[in-house]
């Protein structure tokens, strides 16, 4: 009973988060909303997890939850990876802007003669 109450509190917090996050990223909000609803359902009716697991060919309800959790973690990892790449692109643009703003022309006097270009 204690575990069930603790898990319920956690999952309710995620429900609240999904409600707040809906405006910013609807896809993430919707997914976490559905995941926490499913979590609440299985916390209070654990037998249903076993029935569902048997139905799709997995031995125990716990195993089913574990597999789903691993799946979700991998998707989150990929999402994080993509976010890091996007962040790297922003850093690159920033570094490029700094580099171009501080460009050093070739040192006068040491250049070999070349035709005048006008710019």
């Amino acid at each position, binding site marked *: 009973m204690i575990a069930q109450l603790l898990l319920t509190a956690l999952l309710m917090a995620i429900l609240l988060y999904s409600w707040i996050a809906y405006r910013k990223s609807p896809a993430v909000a919707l997914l976490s909303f559905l995941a926490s609803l499913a979590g609440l359902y299985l916390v209070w009716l654990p037998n249903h997890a076993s029935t569902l697991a048997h139905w799709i060919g997995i031995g125990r309800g716990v195993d089913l939850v574990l597999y789903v959790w691993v799946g979700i973690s991998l998707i989150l990892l990929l999402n994080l990876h*993509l976010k890091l790449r996007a962040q*790297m*692109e922003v850093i690159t643009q920033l570094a490029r802007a700094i*580099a*171009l703003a501080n460009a*050093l022309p070739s*040192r006068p006097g*040491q*250049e070999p003669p070349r*035709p005048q270009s006008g710019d």
Partner: protein
Amino acid sequence: MTITRDNIWVVIPAFNEGQVIADVVAGVVREGYRVVLVDDGSADATGDFAAAAGADVVRHPINLGQGAGLQTGIAYALARGADAIVTFDADGQHRASEIALLIETLARENADFVLGSRFKGAAVNLPPRRRLLLKAATLFTRVTTGLDVSDAHNGFRALSRRGAQAITLRQNRMAHASEILHEIARSGLRYVEAPVTIEYSAYSLAKGQKISDSIVIMVDLFARRLHR
């Protein structure tokens, strides 16, 4: 297309190439081209050597990778009003005397991209294993881009102003070589290949690509497709 030699910019990205960069830059400057060296956050004096040898120097505050260096150099050259841009390796593998051939091909063929090919030209001291890896990469690129190219990972290219404006490199690291070909395919602009000589030395081989890098490149290319 009229291209004057003093309005051709040679872009050289470099990272810790202090040992060879002065000679490489001087070789290009001697041919009468403008050089922009992108110092990719080197720990040594690469930028100083290059500036003394006659290159404009743009310095990344942090190391970003060769692809990012090329894009920075191209942006710099375009801002300076370049008619044509040549990309050139910093490690001494390319011959400055062959830049003229690429530019001449650009003008003669009325192309926007001229891609150097070591397999149409010459690859001096190319180890057999490296040759196999390059051939495999070329096959992969032909299949994924639909471009009819004989050498996929050659850093020696010439771009018209229009061509340079039409492409954007977002792959900072080594996957940019494939990306540039994807960008060329996407732009729909005219490209041709020209024979060039790539001369391998112990120095350039030690700095070059390894088989394991190809896996990293594949991951980078795949990830780009996911978050376009």
